[in-house]
């Protein structure tokens, strides 16, 4: 790669004026005795070749090549609430196993907290070869500095090639701090991961609000960090016979010290989480008034499912934010999603497209929802839904 280097000492006012007049793109400016080249520069190199000698130089760079063999293993950060492991951890372990099989590398779990040692074994049963435990009373609550220091210690000692972190509130605070500490790449909210044989990880994620998919790699830095949302990947089946190693890592107390104190922890009221639902009846702006939700609620109950919705219904105050499916809402991976009166924006689709069976009812046959539904019904929901409810009730009474 090449770039232009400004030699400040060779540039006085008259040299600057000469350079400014040479540049055909008006990309050069001189202010406060500082010469600047703006983003308008097209690298035509007229300033280098025709300008005052030594003022601007073309420099070729040779980048140091990383020895990828020094970095081995796929590590998963264990997401937990006071030692209770969050299922996203098992999903990431499942994916880690799949990625590791391509390059024949081990799968690690990084477990930081207090009173966590007894739960470490579970991680071995879900795909980890080795669990690294950082156990200390001082790690009971999540505080960014101590957790970052333990994570840093793990990476320095174990040198994993890849680190997967759940895209939870903690994960999205911890992962970027770690990536910056190691000056390495982090791809957020990956929806797909593939391992290359040279140990480069192919990271795919939505961008521009889900309108395009970007395929990203971290070619010259390690570890390769990713965050992944809940319900994107799948956990392996619990394997009673799986064995592995649990390693107790020494915790340096000075690394726990920081100028942050937890004053109080307030437990949030447990809300029904649509991410866990197997059957979902999702409603959108095709529903014309709030009272019509009654009929959809009834259907949802008959199907043994849960109601969810698109963003406009949350903004209208009809349903709670935790019922929203989409990029700025929850991701669901249900057995069945029945999308009623939903046009199917990319933002909504990003939150549910991995579900097993997607049914859609919409009166507009050109609605984008029909591009992602497995079965589409072009019709009037106000006629179909009541009839469907009748059918189901009749069949139930017949039993």
């Amino acid at each position: 790669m090449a770039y232009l280097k400004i030699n400040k000492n060779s540039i006085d006012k008259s040299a600057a004026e000469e350079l400014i007049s040479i540049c055909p793109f008006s990309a050069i400016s001189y202010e406060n005795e500082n010469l600047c080249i703006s983003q308008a520069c097209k690298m035509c190199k007229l300033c280098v070749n025709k300008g005052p000698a030594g003022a601007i130089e073309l420099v070729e760079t040779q980048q140091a090549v990383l020895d990828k063999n020094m970095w081995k293993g796929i590590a998963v950060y264990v997401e937990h609430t006071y030692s209770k492991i969050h299922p996203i951890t098992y999903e990431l372990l499942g994916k880690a196993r799949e990625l590791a099989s391509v390059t024949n590398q081990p799968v690690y779990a990084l477990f930081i907290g207090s009173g966590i040692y007894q739960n470490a074994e579970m991680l071995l049963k879900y795909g980890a070869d080795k669990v690294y435990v950082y156990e200390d009373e001082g790690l009971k609550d999540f505080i960014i500095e101590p957790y970052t220091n333990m994570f840093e210690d793990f990476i320095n000692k174990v040198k994993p090639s890849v680190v997967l972190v759940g895209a939870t509130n903690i994960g999205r605070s911890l992962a970027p701090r770690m990536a910056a500490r190691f000056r390495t790449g982090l791809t957020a909210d990956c929806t797909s991961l593939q391992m290359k044989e040279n140990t480069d990880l192919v990271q795919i994620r939505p961008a521009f609000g889900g309108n395009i998919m970007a395929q990203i790699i971290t070619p010259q830095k390690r570890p390769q960090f990713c965050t992944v949302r809940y319900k994107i990947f799948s956990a392996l089946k619990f394997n009673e016979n799986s064995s592995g190693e649990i390693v107790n890592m020494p915790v340096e107390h000075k690394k726990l010290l920081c100028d942050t104190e937890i004053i109080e922890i307030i437990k949030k009221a447990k809300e029904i989480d649509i991410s866990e639902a197997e059957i979902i009846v999702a409603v959108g702006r095709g529903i014309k008034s709030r009272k019509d939700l009654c009929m959809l609620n009834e259907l949802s109950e008959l199907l043994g499912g849960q109601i969810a919705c698109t963003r406009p219904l949350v903004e209208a105050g009809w349903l709670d934010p935790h019922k929203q499916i989409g990029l700025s809402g929850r991701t669901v991976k249900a057995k069945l999603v029945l999308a009623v009166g939903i046009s199917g924006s990319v933002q909504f689709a990003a939150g549910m497209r991995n579900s097993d069976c997607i049914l859609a009812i919409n009166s507009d046959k050109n609605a984008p929802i029909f591009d992602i539904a497995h079965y589409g019904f072009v019709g009037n929901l106000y006629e179909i839904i009541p009839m469907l409810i009748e059918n189901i009730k009749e069949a139930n009474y017949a039993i």
Partner: protein
Amino acid sequence: MEIVVCIKQVPGTTNVEIDPTTGVMKRDGIEAKLNPYDLFAIELALFLKEKYGGQVHVMTMGPLQAKKAVLEALYMGADSGSVISDRRFAGSDVIATSYTLSQGIEKIKYDLVICGKQTTDGDTAQVGPETAEFLGISHATNIVSIDEVKNNYITFKMKLDNTIQIQRTKLPCLITVDKDINTPRLPSYIRKRNICYESINSYCLDDFEDNDEDNYGLKGSATQVERIFPPEKNKDKKIFEGTSGTLTKELYNLLKSNKIV
């Protein structure tokens, strides 16, 4: 309190499309705007300034037209702003952007840095925490409210996944805020009329402590985009059309065969 708010100018809409035949990205030609999440960050800064006194300085990294975003913040009530712009910043990924911002922030004296949670174009939500790491200060994300600033400590409520934590941290530190934690005030017409353009300055790479170009732009980035492509459409699909009666029947049968009813 000296507060810095990091802001970004983003495309006016995220309605972009990949042309399936040429692979080229088509963008609606709508004007750029101030990242919506940043409005909440600016509002919080102004609220703290009103409560504790001090100054609010906004900082943005982008081409010189990003000055518009800075102006909007000034119309809302910010005192001054900087545009960090340099050709050598082109191609910056999150790490290069965060490092560049940290170099800009270090040029001024600050107690608190406030960032919006994410932008509507990159939407990674990483720049805040990474910038804090480069500044060598603590950070907290998902701030819900600020309880108190006293004796060089800030106390706030932050959202974790199952709990809300009340935390006290020594200044300086960095916080990120999500949408809807407050109601951003509108730009003031009076401020717009009386704007002092000298309160906006700009920085380029040569103004920074670290002049090593390898740490910025494409060279300073760790990730590369290999390609972009449109989201997959479901190939395996069946569309039913007809009377409501027929449709209901088909739907019911499907649910039955899937053992839902």
